[in-house]
């Protein structure tokens, strides 16, 4: 009864290139800007919608509101000076940048990271993934008018930020994983406090299951909406939960294990329908995986050991000519750093491969036509994209 089945015959036909010929003068169509300041946008970008009634005929994605030129800045910084910059590429999950950059530098400089540091890095990345999913679960509810999920998840995320603060010294930009290792050891009693956070999180996630995943309104508005045809995964570079929701069980933590993932037991969550609901359930499964992994890591990680490898004096650290690509599975898909060095004290080129670039621009444009205006926000959130990471 809620199904939205527009009569597409009233809209202009597409030309050979698939481009619609829309004449705004007719008064039939309306331009509607969603963003850059809009609660339904996941950050500083906008979607230029062409609507006919409440149906979206065309959507164009616009980025550039946040361009900070990180990659260029990095070329003007020494290898250690890049370290405080990288986390800023992605606000909600900054640690992945720190890991990828550090691992790339270590790869080219031939530095072996101590075991304690690799466990600590895995812990940090899973804590970061957990937080990123908190933002997603809060956001997807919010995009569909379910305000309470946002409040709960922000609360739980705050508790995890407290753990980040005591471990790394900062809440958002942790700057803890640096080339050579990590900056410190677990504080006294950290495990117990972390367990408290995780069990609180599980209680709230149970409530999320009830209020969101078992909610007929949520289901109706998300099932069958924003379906990504699995055939598009390859050409559009769809990775991570977005692909797993379409039945492609790809996860770099399993497929090409990095850090200590090969020593951890976990299953990757998958779904089959490839719609907004499927993408949300995959993430709900993933967040539970992260919770389990954090517990496992704290149980299995060495109790002590050096946190840092011996590295050259960072003030004049030169790295031999070379190039490398370091990738990992962040909460949104494949995240990678491509680093080129030329034997000087500065990176020749750093390129950040973030999943938001592919998901939030071309893919979103492809998915928008034919949706209802009110579903665009949910569709965008369901792709779990962070504009800061597009514009680096």
């Amino acid at each position, binding site marked *: 009864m809620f199904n939205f089945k527009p009569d597409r015959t009233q809209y202009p036909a597409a030309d050979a290139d698939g481009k619609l010929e829309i004449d705004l003068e007719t008064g039939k169509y309306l331009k509607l800007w969603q963003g850059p300041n809009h609660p339904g946008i996941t950050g500083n970008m906008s979607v230029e919608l062409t609507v006919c009634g409440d149906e979206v005929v065309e959507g164009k994605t616009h980025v550039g509101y946040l361009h900070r030129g990180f990659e260029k800045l990095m070329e003007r910084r020494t290898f250690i000076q890049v370290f405080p910059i990288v986390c800023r590429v992605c606000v909600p999950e900054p640690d992945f940048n720190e890991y990828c950059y550090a691992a790339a530098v270590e790869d080219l400089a031939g530095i072996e990271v101590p075991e304690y540091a690799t466990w600590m890095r895995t812990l940090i990345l899973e804590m970061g993934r957990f937080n990123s999913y908190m933002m997603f679960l809060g956001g997807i509810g919010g995009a569909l008018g379910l305000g309470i999920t946002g409040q709960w998840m922000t609360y739980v995320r705050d508790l995890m930020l407290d753990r980040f603060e*005591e471990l790394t010294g900062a809440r958002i*930009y942790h700057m803890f994983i640096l080339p050579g290792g990590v900056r410190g050891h677990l504080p006294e009693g950290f495990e117990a406090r972390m367990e408290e956070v995780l069990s609180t999180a599980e209680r709230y996630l149970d409530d999320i299951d009830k209020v969101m995943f078992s909610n007929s309104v949520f289901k109706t508005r998300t099932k069958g909406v924003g379906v990504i045809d699995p055939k598009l995964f390859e050409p559009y570079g769809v990775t991570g939960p977005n692909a797993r929701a379409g039945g492609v069980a790809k996860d770099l933590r399993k497929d090409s294990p990095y850090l200590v993932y090969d020593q951890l037991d976990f299953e990757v969550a998958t779904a089959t329908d490839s719609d907004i609901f499927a993408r949300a359930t995959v993430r709900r499964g993933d967040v539970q995986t992260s919770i389990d992994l954090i517990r496992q890591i704290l149980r299995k990680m060495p109790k002590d050991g050096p946190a840092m490898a011996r590295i050259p004096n960072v003030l004049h650290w030169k790295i031999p000519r070379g190039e490398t690509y370091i990738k990992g599975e962040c909460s949104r898909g494949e995240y990678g750093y491509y680093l080129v060095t030329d034997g000087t004290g500065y990176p020749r080129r750093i390129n950040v491969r973030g999943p938001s670039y592919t998901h939030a621009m071309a893919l979103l444009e492809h998915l928008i036509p034919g949706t209802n205006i009110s579903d665009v926000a949910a569709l965008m959130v369901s792709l779990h994209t962070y504009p800061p990471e597009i514009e680096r």
Partner: protein
Amino acid sequence: MGLREVLTPFTVWKHVFDEPVTIKNPIGRPAADRYRGFHQNDMASCIGCGTCEAICQNAAIDMVPVDGIETRTGDSGLRPQIDYGRCCWCALCVDVCMTGSLTMSNEYTWVDTDPDAFRFVPGLEEPWKDDEEGYEREGKRVLSGIERIHMEEMPPETRISNFEEIVDGYSRAEAILEADRCVECGLCVATCPAHMSIPDYIAAVRDQDYDRGLEILYETNPFSEVCGRVCTHKCETSCAALHEGDPIAIRWLKRHIVDEVPFDRRLELIGKPAAPTGRKVAIIGAGPAGLTAAFDLARAGHGVVVFEALSHAGGMMRYGIPEYRLPYEALDRDIGVIEAMGVEIRTNCRVGRDVTMDALRRDYDSVILAIGLNMGRSTRVPGTEGPGVEKAVDLLRRITDGEEVPVPERLVVIGGGNVAMDIARSMARLQMQKYGRVGVTLTALEDIDHFLADREEIVESREEGVQIFDARGPQEVVRDESGAVTGLRTWRVKSIFDADGRFAPAYDEGDEQIHEGTMVIEAIGQMADTSLLEEALTEALEWNRGRIRIDGAFRTSEPWLFAAGDAVKGPDVINAVADGHRVARTVMDELAAREVMQ
């Protein structure tokens, strides 16, 4: 879709009675122990090295002068001022800090209506100084190397029977690693008497550009090969790295550069002197001060003749420093470069005997006196007059000249400086060659922690079997009925200086020892032999407590005569080199001024 999915969401209404989870007022809540708040700086342990400024990727840190903090050895007198409009709280400055003085406070927020309040010198302004501590580095610094790269040396049992050089020198790989530890703060440059561009030549080692390194060395020191071996390396006492580890081996890195450049290449790099000016300068004494001045003057195109009384040039570098510390070939190469500049060195030519001061005054435009301190001082305790008591400098000179010197089976050295160590270790070697064992006792007024000798000299002397008795004051050279020396009687020293800081040793007479030995060698200091000046000039010159009085530019009270080196200042090679440069500068300025006057 069933009724269940309509009703289930309502079960979360149970939360309606929960306490709100959001915190109304986060200000006042304590932050975590490691929280990175505003900076704190322990002003007393900060040395103003500026490493924090160097690493800051936002240029948020400026090193600024601060009232009440003076520039001194090993402290630039500057302190970091942080602009919180630029700071990103990464705390790399804390991690890289060479002394651990920089930390961060544990405070979340700070509200102020004055934007300038957010640019301040931590540790100075009151509001933040006493806040609870937040982030500090875990353990010692890891962003630059702590430990010095080990220098291979000949083991004591091998070196004690010969005069071969002890220190091996760094390999290229070792030198790069050692050079890597330098943070280029430049505190050493200020400390070095010759202000050598130390961070620059260390950078040349890192880059393996030895040509560049050598050129940098020669900008400030024509005796880099000598100083690379025997410099008193005051630079290493002000090195920022020593606060949490070993200072950079600056001296060994200097030596490494010179070792890596063949002599011919050295001559090529130094190049040719400037076109002749037609001016002539006479320099008396071919020690480090005289030859440095000669090098500078000759390079500028002036004609330079150096008059040296002994058979070889080098002064105390040759006749004072034993060969196991400074091989003669090394010294010869440094002197060779100076001679290649056109400097004429007339050895075996004693001024006052072979040529008079008046003649020099007549034949040259200027005369530089760089005669050094070559006469040993005596303790003048009873028994020092007569055979069996020697002066260290005399013995060292005779050893260098290849003369036969008396080598008794047991001997006593008086003195705690480097000369005392040199003679003790030289005699130990001769004893080893003659008797197969070492019998050297060394006594000094100072306690061992206040010896004037370099630390490694004390360590190596002991390794070689020299017995050191510290805080012992000589009272009498003990002789038997025939007048032959049998030992040295000493009392324990209670204090060396009186309340006014004057030299007035106080002894504990009850604590007496007789150190056995058939020879006593005095190594308590030297003085200049100014007899070459003759009476009229001695009368005409102004004096300052036995030394010729000079002004800040090394002019004596006679306009044609300049003086430099140990004879007027001292006390070591690098100071002599520094003096040599300055006196040469003054002479060149005077010559140029005279040119204008004519």
